[in-house]
């Protein structure tokens, strides 16, 4: 079974867009959160979530199963989905 994939992204971030396009190109389904489109407590909760896995608080932050990938790193994504 394919690992669960969560992408913490910004709607305006080009690397986030390219990462999602890459995941789609690999026929992978993923959950995406556009943090910049959240407000108030919802945003704070998600930022805390990101901070736990990526203290740099940068985007995209991609969680594939237990693997956290910071930035759009194709090789790391392929490795994490066991395709590398």
């Amino acid at each position, binding site marked *: 079974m394919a690992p669960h994939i969560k992408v913490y992204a910004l709607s305006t971030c080009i690397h986030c867009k390219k990462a999602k396009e890459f995941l789609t190109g690999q026929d992978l389904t993923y959950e995406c959160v556009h943090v910049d489109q959240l407000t108030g407590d919802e945003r704070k909760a998600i930022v805390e979530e990101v901070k736990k896995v990526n*203290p740099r608080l940068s985007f995209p932050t991609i969680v594939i199963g237990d693997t956290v990938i910071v930035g759009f790193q194709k090789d790391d994504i392929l490795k994490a989905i066991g395709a590398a």
Partner: protein
Amino acid sequence: MNAEALYEQLKKFQESKGYFFNKDKDMVLALLESLLFNKDRYGYMACPCRLASGDYEEDKDMLCPCVYREEDVKEFGACFCGLYVSKEWNDETIPHQTVPERRPPEKALAALGLL
């Protein structure tokens, strides 16, 4: 103003300062569109690849061109977004690496009231 007009407006000036637009024009136009979008929603051109707080004072370091551009272009040949690059980056005489985030997370957290 649209992304193409902003491109023309910025290009000469930024090149005179040694910063070139990424030769991937589609990417550049998408980033410039995002900057215009951020200007609409925040009132200033917050970096499209960083989480803005919406507070101008808190986000001043990440107004495009951000204060991190100089060091990032010097070290990696590109800014965090990949909007501005060095001549060597466009000439592909240096490797294209993912630029890590130089902005201290404390700044982002403080701006979000999470520090």
